[in-house]
């Protein structure tokens, strides 16, 4: 039985833990606190929680001002609003001056499900990855979320941390050592490598297990830090396995797939395939139905791995 935990639940709990340790931590939200789970912090520390209503741009501005005065600011909303809606504010006011603001968004990707295309952020990694000074992290489960939130709170500078709505299967154990900027090999293999983020890490592990049964030895890498990306682990995987598949709950344009391709093409080109949302918007359906329709289930990953292996 696979244990499930929503990354946003882990976020809310971790914020409370950090709030106890550090008085400088403040949390902002834009009328989504019950969904982003910043409500847990609000209940524990009402004097350090600020709601801005449905006004994300203004929330980012207040985050900027608070950060210039030494506060460690966590600003949360849904991924579509925390990236697309406030891109200019984040660019000019936070990324350029390297301010200490952690934008932690939830409900990212197509697994938000029934709310449909307007709420399915599949462009946010591409946007945030293009900003100088920005660190972009997509945790694979609740355990990694806790470690990523703690790690980013100890480093001054802008972060974009992308969480989901759905409960994610737990892939890490408590003793997992998270390091910003480092990928992790979750399963070794020699015939191909799957590089995945977020919810897709579990699908990737499932695919690797199925491939093993067919005699294809597949490495699985969790690439939770998309920027700065761990070039060494990608180049090593390309040199040793000669075939790469990327998996992300994001457009195949500009996200993990693009980031990995950029490293490969300049260092060690090998057959590669990107799994993710093709160049089109989503629609209302259950998360499982959407993953199926977008070709993002483990069965699709298996097919993609076979394809790149055949091109070696």
């Amino acid at each position, binding site marked *: 039985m696979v244990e499930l935990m929503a990354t946003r639940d882990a976020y809310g709990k971790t914020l409370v833990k950090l709030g106890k340790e550090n008085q400088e931590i*403040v949390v902002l939200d834009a009328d989504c606190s019950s969904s982003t789970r910043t409500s847990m912090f609000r209940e524990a520390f009402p*004097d*350090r929680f*600020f709601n*801005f*209503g449905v*006004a994300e*741009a*203004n*929330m*980012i*501005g*207040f*985050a*900027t*001002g*608070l*950060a*210039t*005065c*030494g*506060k460690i600011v966590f600003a949360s909303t849904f991924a579509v609003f925390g990236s697309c809606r406030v891109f*200019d*504010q984040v*660019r*000019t*006011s936070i990324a*350029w*001056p*390297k301010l200490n603001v952690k934008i932690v968004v939830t409900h990212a990707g197509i697994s938000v499900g029934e709310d449909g295309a307007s709420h399915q952020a599949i462009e946010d990694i591409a946007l945030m990855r293009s900003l100088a000074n920005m660190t972009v992290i997509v945790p694979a489960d609740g355990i990694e979320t806790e470690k990523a939130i703690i790690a980013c709170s100890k480093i001054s500078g802008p972060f974009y941390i992308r969480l989901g709505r759905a409960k994610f299967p737990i892939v890490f154990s408590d003793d997992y050592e998270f390091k910003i900027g480092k990928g992790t090999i979750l399963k070794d293999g020699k015939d191909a490598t799957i590089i995945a983020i977020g919810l897709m890490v579990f699908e990737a592990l499932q695919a690797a297990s199925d491939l093993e049964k067919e005699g294809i030895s597949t490495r699985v890498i969790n690439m939770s830090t998309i920027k700065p990306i761990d070039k060494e682990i990608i180049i090593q995987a390309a040199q040793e396995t000669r075939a790469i598949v990327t998996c992300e709950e994001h457009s195949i344009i500009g996200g993990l797939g693009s980031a990995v391709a950029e490293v490969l093409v300049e260092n060690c080109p090998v057959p590669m395939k990107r799994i993710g949302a093709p160049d089109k918007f989503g629609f209302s359906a259950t998360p499982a139905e959407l993953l199926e329709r977008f070709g993002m289930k483990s069965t699709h990953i298996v097919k993609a791995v076979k394809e790149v292996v055949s091109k070696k």
Partner: protein
Amino acid sequence: MGIEISNEQIQELEAKAKDVRRWIIKMLAEAGSGHPGGSLSSTDIITALYFKIMNHRPADPKWEDRDRFVLSKGHCCPALYAVLALSGYFPTDELMRLRKLDSFLQGHTDMLSTPGVEISAGSLGQGLSIAGGMALAGKLNHKDYHVYVVLGDGESQEGQVWEAAMACPHYKLDNLCAFLDYNKLQIDGPVAEVMNIAPLVDKFRAFGWHTIEIDGHNMNQIIQATNEAKNTRGKPTMVIAHTIKGKGVSFMEGKVEWHGVAPSKEERDKALEELQ
């Protein structure tokens, strides 16, 4: 609570503002590009803030108890740079390096480059929110500092300004005093024709601000407005400052053409003659 000011001190401030205007003209002519119109319309407000109203330490720009100044309309940074240099944050020689390669005086304010600059700006509409964050931090940290902002009138067409207009009174930020530099011209023409923002006093009052209407070139009125802001409890203050774009240079005054064009060498000399 308030600053007392003598006629003599007002004359000194007016002389200082003239000096600031001279530097604005010189630096823009040297740079060959930039924004004279709004720099000159906001000069008196920024001069009064740095030379009379604000607690700040040019030798210690990051002093944590300092009053903060946010120039939301970042393109008017020549006025701020001149005031900072004349206050002693950096040598006035540096002003002639505005917009040049490796200069710490960027075309729009960069808080990491320039001593004394509080925010990075240039994309309009963000400064009031940022100032709100600084004021909120002051409340959280039990600090007595005040936060001052200069907003543009064209800038106030940005929706985010009105999001901040809602939030600052909501959080009772009475340590915040904003000046709206109402010179009534923007790039495409008169503000009232491009996209009317009037009536400003009624709007901000309806949003919960203490409002004051002044002549933004009258030093005494600028100072009295900040005194009134300090004595206002429970709400932020918005000073609608009626100004003249290009103020102080006859051929620039009230001319929209001077929004974003630098003076030539001849125009510079003519302007400097007027500013003797």
